[in-house]
C-alpha cells in the first residue's frame, strides 16, 4: 500500500497500463514535458518517451480523431482533453463518430480508446472551465462513462477503461486532485459498471459521484447524529451502470437521494431516479429527491461557486427535511 494523491494516481495508473501493453500510447495538449495542466501525467514522458506520450497542437478534433483512427487500426490510445468543457469543441468526433462507429459498422470496427479529462468545479475557474459534463457523455449510446472519487479507483478504473475494448470517457475531478488515499501495491484493475457502497445505512440511500462522494459522506455522518442512517453509494461508473446495486439499496432503505454536481436538467440523477421509480416503486416510502447544482452556468467568484455546488450542508439539510416530510405522510 502506498499513499498517493488523486493526481499522482492518474500517472500511476497510466504507467501501469503502459508497462503492461507496449502498444498503448497517449496524446494530448501539453501532456509531455509539461505533464499536463494539473500535472496528472508528470513523469510519463521520461519513462515512456515522446513517441508514446505525444503533445499535440490546440486541435481537439484532430487529436481525438487521431485517437479514433489509431484505435480502429489496432493501437489502443489514451487521449487527454485538458478540461472537460472542451469536449464541446470535438463533440462531433466523440458523440457522432466514436460512439456510433461500432454499431453503424455492425461490429466491424473496435475502438479501444480512453478519453481522460479534468471535470468539475470548486477551483474558481468560471463557467467555461468548471463544468461537470458526465451527463453529456451518458446521453450518447456507445460511450462508457467513468468518474472515480478516490486514488485507488483512479488507478483501478483507469486500468479497467484501458483494457475495455470500447470507448470510455474517464472524468478526473479537478477538486479531488490533491486528495490522498491508499493505493494497493502491484497491479490494480477494477471493473467498470460496479458501484460501491461506501457507507452502509438503513433509512435512506444517497447516490453520489466524484467530488460529491466525500460531501455525501460528511452529510451522512451528520445525519447519523440525528439518528438517521444513510447508505452512501459511489456510483463510479455511469455506463455501464450498476443499477442492481442502487435498486438493492433502495429496496432496503425505501428512500432515494442523488447528489449531482451537474446543473439540474437531465443530470445522471434523473436517469437513476427514473430507474428506481420504475423498478422499486413499491419499496419507496417517500419521494426521491435530487440535490444538484442549480440550472445555471458555474459562477467564478468563490462565494458564488460555493453556493452553487451541492455542499455537505445542503445535502444534510435537504435530506433531513425530506425525511421529516416523508414520515408525515
Amino acid at each position, binding site marked *: 500500500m502506498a499513499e498517493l494523491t488523486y493526481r499522482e494516481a492518474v500517472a500511476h495508473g497510466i504507467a501501469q497500463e503502459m508497462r503492461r501493453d507496449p502498444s498503448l500510447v497517449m496524446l494530448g495538449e501539453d501532456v509531455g514535458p509539461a505533464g499536463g495542466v494539473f500535472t496528472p501525467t508528470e513523469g510519463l514522458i521520461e519513462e515512456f518517451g515522446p513517441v508514446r506520450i505525444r503533445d499535440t497542437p490546440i486541435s481537439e478534433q484532430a487529436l481525438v480523431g487521431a485517437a479514433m483512427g*489509431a484505435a480502429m487500426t489496432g493501437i489502443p490510445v489514451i487521449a487527454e482533453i485538458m478540461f472537460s468543457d472542451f469536449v464541446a469543441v470535438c463533440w462531433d468526433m466523440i458523440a*457522432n463518430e466514436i460512439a456510433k462507429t461500432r454499431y453503424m459498422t455492425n461490429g466491424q470496427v473496435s475502438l479501444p480508446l480512453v478519453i481522460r479529462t479534468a471535470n468539475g468545479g470548486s477551483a474558481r475557474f468560471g463557467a467555461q472551465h468548471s463544468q461537470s459534463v458526465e451527463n453529456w457523455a451518458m446521453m450518447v449510446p456507445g460511450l462508457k462513462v467513468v468518474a472515480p472519487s478516490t486514488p485507488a479507483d483512479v488507478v483501478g478504473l483507469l486500468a479497467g477503461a484501458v483494457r475495455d475494448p470500447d470507448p470510455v470517457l474517464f472524468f478526473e475531478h479537478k477538486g479531488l486532485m490533491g486528495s490522498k488515499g491508499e493505493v494497493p501495491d502491484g497491479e490494480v484493475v477494477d471493473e467498470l459498471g460496479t458501484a460501491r457502497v461506501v457507507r452502509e445505512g438503513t433509512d435512506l440511500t444517497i447516490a453520489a459521484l466524484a467530488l460529491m462522494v466525500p460531501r455525501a459522506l460528511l452529510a451522512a455522518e451528520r445525519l447519523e447524529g440525528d439518528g438517521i442512517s444513510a447508505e452512501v453509494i459511489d456510483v463510479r461508473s455511469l455506463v455501464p451502470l450498476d443499477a442492481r446495486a442502487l435498486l438493492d439499496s433502495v429496496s432496503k432503505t425505501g428512500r432515494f437521494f442523488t447528489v449531482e454536481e451537474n446543473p439540474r436538467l437531465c443530470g445522471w440523477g434523473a436517469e437513476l431516479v427514473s430507474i428506481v421509480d420504475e423498478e422499486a416503486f413499491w419499496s419507496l416510502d417517500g419521494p426521491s429527491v435530487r440535490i444538484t447544482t442549480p440550472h445555471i452556468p458555474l459562477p467564478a467568484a468563490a462565494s458564488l461557486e460555493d453556493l452553487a455546488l451541492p455542499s455537505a450542508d445542503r445535502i444534510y439539510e435537504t435530506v433531513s427535511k425530506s425525511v421529516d416530510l416523508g414520515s408525515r405522510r
Partner: protein
Amino acid sequence: MRTDPRYDYALSEPRLPPPVDESLAEAPIDTEVRLRMWRKLQEIRQFSKRAYDLFLQNLVRGTTHLSLGMEAVATGFGAAIRPDDYTFATYRGHGHSLARGMDPGRAMAELLGRENGILGGKGGSMHLTDVSVGMMGSYAIVGAHLCVANGAAWSAQLRGTDQVAVVFFGDGTTNIGAFHEALNFAVVWNLPVVFVCENNQYKEYTPIDAVTAVPRPAADRALSYGLEPSLLDGNDPDAVYLEAREALGKARAGGGPTLIEAVTYRSGGHSRADPGKYRPDQEVEAWLARDPMVLYRARLLSIGVPQDRLDEIEQEVARAIDEATEFAKGGPEPGEDSLLTDLWADGGSSWRS
C-alpha cells in the same frame, strides 16, 4: 508547384472543363492496369445507375449520394493503392468502396437496408465500410474523417508498417474547421496520409466559389501547411493514377502528407432528391461531353485497345451488377435479433446490471 495552368477555367464563369491532356496516352502505365481501371469505372458507374433505378422503385429508402461523373478519382486511387492501405470516404463513398474491392452485392444490399448488407442494414448508404478490404468507413458529417484518417496513418507509423491512409472529401469540406486541424496535424506529425479533395465544384446546391475565399478550395490552401499545391484532372483516370502513385510512394517513404485537388463534376444532383437544376445547362453539357467514360474509352482506343475488349468488360460488369442486384433484393429485412447487437465489443448493447 504542380498547379496546372489549364485549370484557370475555374476562375471564370461558367465552370467549363479544361482540355484533355492527350500526352497522358504516353504515360508509363501498363495496359493491364488501364484495363482494370476501365473495369472499375464501369463497375462504379453501373452500380450507381442501378442504385438510382432501385431508388426510383422505392427500394432504396433514406438518401443516396451518387458519384456519377466522378468515378475516375476512386478508380485511379483504387489502382494505385496497396491492399493493406486505408481508405476513408464520405457519404458519397460507393465508388471508393468498390474501388477497394467491396462486394457490390453486399454494398447494394446495404443500400436496400437488408440483412445481407455489408453492415447488416445498420449503417446504410452513407456509411459503407469493409475493414477486410481496407475500406475504413464512409462518414456522413463533413470534416471528421480527415482527422480519423490521420489516426490510421499514425497507427501505421507506430506499428512501423509502411501503410498509407488516403482520405477523400469534397470541395465544400475545405471550409470546415476539421479540415484545417487535420492538415496541420498531419504535417506536424509527418504522417503517411494523402488528402484528396474531389472538387466537383458544388457543395450541395451552391457553387463552391460562392462560399470559398480562394478559387482552388484545396490547392490554394496547401501553403498554409507548408505543402506543395497539387491540382489535377479528376476525370482522367491516368492523371489520378500517376499522382496517386507519387503521393502514396512519398508517404510510404516517410515523406509525409500530400494534399491533392482533383477537379471533377458530378453529373447528377447532390443526393437522391436533387435534380441539380441550379447548374447552367451549358456547364452540365460541357462536362457530360468530358465524362470519364468518354474520355477513357477514347484514351484506350487511342493506345490500341480493341473496342471489343472494352465492350466485353462493360458487359461482364453488367452481369455482375445484375447478380449483385439479385443478391441484394433476395436478402431479408433485418429484424429484432440484430437491433440490439454490436454496440459494444461484447456483441450486445446493455448499459446496466
